[in-house]
């Protein structure tokens, strides 16, 4: 039974659950490193962003906004908007981590990414009362963290030697498509996506991509309104 799982076995279970996802994350990390350099970010800053921000798609967007000369406050807002989805994961794992000391909660919150959550949550739900459940999440979180640091470092080292016109920026919209499309499983969510997309195109002339915030709010309101009505 999982209740008898030792700390080391729980940790390794989390690592193993995450390993297949590194296949997708590693190329993404390399591309981030290349794009960060092309956006004019110094190599050391590009590498440090991976541990200080530690959020793949947000790092991508931040690099592109810096390349476009966006003001700092807007960049922070955009990162917050993108990462707000992690509040869902936080709410989901909170009951499992409730009794842990604060240092564990701080560490696991720092490591709480899309991939770590997706890899660990089936095991956490299978036995949420296990005294070693948090070691599973730590294993997944740590494996992703290590893979992300290595792959972004590789990208930064490669980046200086690659031509600028490879078209790698297309990885960002493709990644968002991969995240969003599977989430759209009812009509209210489809309405939210359609409204957000249309408003974003209509407001694209607003300076520094501020139309994005209005579009996201419009989509959120439309989806919630449509969901409540039914």
């Amino acid at each position: 039974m999982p209740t008898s799982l030792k700390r080391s076995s729980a940790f390794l279970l989390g690592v193993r659950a995450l390993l297949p996802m590194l296949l997708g994350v590693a190329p993404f990390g390399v591309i981030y490193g290349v794009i960060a350099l092309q956006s004019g970010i110094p190599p050391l800053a590009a590498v440090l962003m991976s541990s200080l921000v530690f959020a793949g798609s947000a790092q991508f967007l931040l690099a592109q906004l810096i390349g476009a000369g966006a003001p700092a406050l807007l960049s922070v807002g955009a990162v917050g908007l993108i990462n707000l989805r992690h509040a869902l994961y936080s709410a989901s794992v909170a009951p499992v981590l409730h009794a842990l000391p604060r240092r564990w909660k701080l560490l696991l919150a720092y490591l709480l990414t899309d991939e770590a959550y997706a890899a660990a949550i089936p095991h956490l739900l299978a036995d949420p009362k296990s005294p070693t459940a948090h070691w599973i999440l730590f294993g997944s979180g740590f494996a992703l963290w290590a893979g992300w640091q290595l792959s972004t470092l590789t990208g930064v080292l490669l980046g200086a030697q690659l031509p600028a016109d490879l078209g790698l920026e297309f990885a960002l919209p493709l990644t968002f498509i991969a995240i969003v499309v599977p989430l759209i499983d009812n009509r209210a969510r489809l309405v939210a996506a359609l409204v957000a997309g249309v408003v974003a195109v209509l407001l694209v002339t607003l300076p520094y991509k501020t139309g994005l915030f209005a579009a996201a709010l419009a989509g959120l309101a439309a989806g919630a309104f449509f969901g409540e009505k039914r």
Partner: protein
Amino acid sequence: MNWLPLWLACGLLTFAIRYSFIALEGHYRPPSWFVRWLPFVPIAALTAITVPELLLVSGKLAIGTDNPHLWAGLVAIAVAARWKNTLLTIASGFIALGLIRWVG
């Protein structure tokens, strides 16, 4: 560029979001409307970023053969809807883009 304060601000905000409900557990229950609205956030935010990237070329609406990213994006959307696989979706988009540019 003064990057360190910007990185720290983005990092702290990201951490605060991830820590939010873990810290609040047992002390506070979020209102039910908040919990119902939360799932729409990633959908609305990420779609608002993605759609202009696909539909616009240099700030102008482009829905013809002059916009390979749009068609490659549509291929990726179809693949994502059918297989729900991140790596497959990204790979299909890049392969479609390469094919469209090679043909056109």
